[in-house]
């Protein structure tokens, strides 16, 4: 190893160390700032209680329920749509459709969420209020529609990559046994791309969970456990955005760091799962 190589190796090692240390430091930082909460209230109350700071209740459960409900339902909507779009782009549609569709999807990945939120406030919320006649129209449903729209492009592009990675030989074998394009897609491409599909879904889940503005502007933010999609609900991220202006010594302020830790843990789980799936792909190839 030359001196230059050794030097490069050192720099890279330092960069890796910093990159690994920062997320850890963030977690420690959040734990330190949330500490007044842990020393004042039992952990069980924090995790299962309701949010009513005036009466001394600091519970994260309503927000966690809202966040997970919103993330899973928007995935449930976005997954089939993304799969369909990716299939069309992959080759089920003629190129006159597939190419513009791919461009559209690529453009949509860059849409700022505040645009969805803004349109949602003036178009979707009144529409939901009018159609369902339940409450103000600010509810999980009003948030999940634009949220699905937001995560669909990312998912679609991920799926396209997964489909493109299916080996040519497999496809040729399927074609040789008489399968047409749709049959090949459904019975060969989708199963072969399975792990890529899961990975794309997990990434989209992380985005849905982490979105703040759509939920804050459209979901209604009532700190209650929602019992239907037409209920007003407050996500973890929206809660952080709502309370961040609070005074810095209050338990309310400490609580937003607990929200941060829970979000951190949830997204870390999703990321680790995606990583496990992806390394699984590598093992198959080897």
């Amino acid at each position, binding site marked *: 190893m030359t001196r230059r190589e050794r030097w490069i190796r050192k720099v890279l090692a330092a960069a890796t160390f910093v990159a690994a240390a920062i997320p850890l430091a963030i977690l420690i930082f959040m734990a330190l700032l949330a500490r007044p909460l842990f020393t004042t209230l039992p952990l069980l109350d924090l995790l299962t209680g309701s949010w009513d*700071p*005036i009466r001394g209740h600091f519970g994260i459960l309503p927000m966690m329920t809202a966040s997970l409900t919103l993330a899973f339902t928007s995935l449930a909507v976005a997954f089939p749509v993304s799969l369909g779009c990716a299939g069309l782009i992959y080759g089920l549609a003629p190129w006159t459709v597939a190419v513009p569709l791919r461009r559209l999807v690529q453009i949509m990945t860059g849409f700022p969420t505040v645009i969805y939120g*803004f349109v949602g*406030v*003036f178009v979707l*919320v*009144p529409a939901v*209020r009018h159609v369902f006649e339940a*409450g*103000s*129209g*600010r509810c999980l449903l009003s948030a999940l529609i634009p949220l699905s729209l937001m995560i669909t492009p990312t998912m679609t592009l991920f799926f396209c990559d997964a489909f493109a990675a299916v080996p040519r030989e497999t496809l040729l074998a399927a074609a040789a046994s008489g399968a047409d394009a749709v049959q090949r897609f459904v019975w060969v491409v989708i199963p072969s791309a399975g792990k890529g599909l899961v990975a794309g879904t997990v990434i989209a889940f992380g985005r849905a969970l982490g979105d703040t503005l759509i939920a*804050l*502007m459209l979901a*209604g*933010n*009532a*700190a*209650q456990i929602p019992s239907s999609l037409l*209920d*007003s609900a*407050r996500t973890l991220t929206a809660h952080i*955005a*709502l*309370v*961040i*202006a*609070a*005074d*810095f*010594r*209050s338990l*309310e302020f400490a609580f937003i760091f607990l929200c941060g830790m829970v979000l951190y843990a949830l997204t870390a789980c999703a990321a680790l799962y995606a990583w496990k799936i992806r390394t699984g792909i590598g093992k198959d190839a080897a």
Partner: protein
Amino acid sequence: MRVRRGYLLISVFLWVLATASGACADSFEAFRGLEGTLKISGGTAHIPVMQTLAQEVMRRYPAIRITIAGGGSGVGIKQVGEGLVDIGNSGRKPTDEEIAAYGLKLYRWAMDGVAAVVHPQNPVRALTVQQVKDIFSGKIMNWKDVGGPDRAIHVFTRDEASGTREVFWKKALDKGAIRKDADVVPSNGAMKTAVATDPAAIGYMSVGYVDESVRAVILDGVEANVDNVQSGRYPVARGLYSNTKGDPSPLAKAFLGLLYAPEGQAVIADKGYIPVTQ
């Protein structure tokens, strides 16, 4: 039409912000030659005004640092009294005991009135305090029970960190309950959008924010307008105070002076409060 109105609101807001920060340098001259750190803490309602002014001061005079923390009125009074901060903000007048014990000097620089608001098309123009309490607690769920159309009431409230919520909760709701399923919006601006786009909505906001897109409800026969807040006839109101221990330091004095100067008053009005002259 509604979208356009929202757009207009944003542009007006940006315009006010731009003119407020680009105002002539006269009152900022008081900071010339000063340096060091000015520590402010206490009432959270004050923060928007203080932050805007502090940023402008720090932009013009980089040798000056201004830190602004919350803590609530009690904390503001306690910290300034114990000499931990230079200015302690409070959303209430410090008690005579507090003034005597700490030797506080009071600066009341704004009045804040909080009005219950409904959609302009809502035929309900006036409510009693009891009706407002019942609506927010969920005892009254339909507009027809207060003389309106047969339509469910959509209650909008603010988050617990909101000073506006605190005043309304204390002085209009008499610390009564607020429906758990009430929609929560993050700011006076968001409240205006929410109520202006929902004919069945009721919410509350700083009187300074009320315009023709929403209607302030007449409360127990008193209209919630700037004049009635100023005269004290409208009860859901309070003064915004900044307090110092004894005479203020030169830096604190310059900053408090700014609150009474045209630049400061423009920011105060812009943030939805009623400026008070010295």
